């Protein structure tokens, strides 16, 4: 079922990770991505992985979820692996040589494993941001982080509001899609078999009701907001202010140390490095 998709979902909790300031979490999430791309050897990758697992354990989000979040991107990982496996040429003799044009080198294997693990770590680690941060806190943080752009007349508040609303309605829309699909299946709709065109046609009975209700909902929401005198970001205050404290700065410091450590590893342990992956 569609409902089993967990990427972007929020799992309420009260762990230290949940309580970190969401602005810091976004910055650390970006830093984590940078860190993964800086790493070019196995020790660094393992260190990044351990770091990530540690944070997961602290957050109390079940590790079973992690694998669920990976499932939708498995095809992407597979393609990356295959491309690297066949197209990377090493210096020595190829391990496998089929008719001279399909060749696999040791370097190809190591690179594709490295890439696959890196993508997995990337997705798993980044998912943690939404798993542990409520959508409201997330968009608040984005609004605050982007607020310098207001000087350039960039509609930061409006953008954040749109994101909040979109995030808020994703689960609703998914639930609704599930319901409408079930209702049409009950009338004998065949949504799973047939060629591409047939499948696309079979989706019409799902999409039309979905659009109808989404527009209706948008209309009602706009009316409800106007009734409560919403008129944009000008002079608007918040009920819940974001607060940063010692724990947030400490977390940021740990993150910086991690990056520094990985860069040092790259420099001083180059013999474990992977050719073709340069930071």
């Amino acid at each position, binding site marked *: 079922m569609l409902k089993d998709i967990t990427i972007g979902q929020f799992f309420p909790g009260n762990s230290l990770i949940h309580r970190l300031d969401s602005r810091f979490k976004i910055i650390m999430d970006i830093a984590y991505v940078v860190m993964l791309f800086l790493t070019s050897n196995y020790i660094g990758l393992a260190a990044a992985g351990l770091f990530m697992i540690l944070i997961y354990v602290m957050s109390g989000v*079940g590790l*079973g979820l992690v694998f*669920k979040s990976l499932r939708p991107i498995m095809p992407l990982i597979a393609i990356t692996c295959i491309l690297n496996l066949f197209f990377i040429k090493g210096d020595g003799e190829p391990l496998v040589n089929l008719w001279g044009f399909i060749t696999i080198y040791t370097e190809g294997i190591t690179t594709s494993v490295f890439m696959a693990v890196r993508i997995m770590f990337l997705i798993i680690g980044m998912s943690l941001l939404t798993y542990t941060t409520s959508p409201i806190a997330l968009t608040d943080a984005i609004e605050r982080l982007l607020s310098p752009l207001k000087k350039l007349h960039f509609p930061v508040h409006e953008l954040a509001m749109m994101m909040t609303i979109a995030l808020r309605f994703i689960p609703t829309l998914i639930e609704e899609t599930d*319901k409408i699909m079930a*209702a049409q*299946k009950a*009338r*004998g709709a065949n949504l799973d078999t047939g060629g591409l065109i047939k499948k696309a046609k079979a989706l019409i009975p799902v999409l039309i*009701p979905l659009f109808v209700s989404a527009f209706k909902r948008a209309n009602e929401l706009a009316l409800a907001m106007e009734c409560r005198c919403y008129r944009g970001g000008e002079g608007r205050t918040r009920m819940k202010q974001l607060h940063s404290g010692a724990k947030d700065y400490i977390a940021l410091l740990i993150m910086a140390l991690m990056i520094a450590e990985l860069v040092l590893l790259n420099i001083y342990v180059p013999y474990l490095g992977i050719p073709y992956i340069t930071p």
Partner: protein
Amino acid sequence: MNIIELKNITYKYSVGTPFEAVAVDNVTLTVEKGEFCGIIGHTGSGKSTLIQHLNGLVKPTLGEVYIDGQNIWSKDTDIREIRFKAGLVFQYSEHQLFEESVYKDIAYGPKNMGLSEEETDKRVHYAAQSMGIGDELLERSPFDLSGGQKRRVALAGVIAMEPEILILDEPAAGLDPIGRESVLSRISDYHKKNGTTILLVSHSMEDIVKYAEKVLVMNKGKVFCHAPTDEVFARQDEIVGIGLDVPQITKVTMKLKEKGIDLGSDIYTVERAKERILQYKAKGSIC
């Protein structure tokens, strides 16, 4: 003959996430052919989940489902055949309408069955008529109809498949009293005329006792009882005990009983109450 047989059905939502929840808990149930069974229970008691097992929309985590003697999850069962046999109308079924005309929308099910134009046409007209949709509405857009009309079009869309079992999830929810009556009495008439097995989920005890022959009471994912209406109401204290409502007239007779006027504990319609009160008076007691 039992047209529906459920054997130890358990269903869990979102297995393996923090949201895991048991919606249906070890339910064993049989429904006879031609039965009009009312299903009642609190919100969240698992009614909707249970009925989605009957046409294979959800697969039980544990247990077996037999429709017409056929295990619907065995390899050689075509699940679409089961869906045509057990027609399911969802709650707020008007949300499923999508065609440009009422006629086409009702014809969607029969078309999926692969019926001929002629047969489809016959069924669409019969279904529309059963649900009180006049010919003049058939060419209108379903989106231009009133709420009650839309609901009846959606019902007709399933009835047009002429299923042997018609399962309705709160078909009257959210309608005004006239709309409710017009939907429910038409379902009842359809049952009488065609002898279709009907499962009707409802919040309202009044609706259930008015139309159903048997009642299935669900409580926290379990079957609390499944018996003829009389027997179920003989246990009215227990029903009130699990927090369900009883018809207003039953409330009155329960209060009367507390005051020492026992009219019997199987009263759930005004007619029967009237009968009993007259009997009671004839015996020369107070009142």
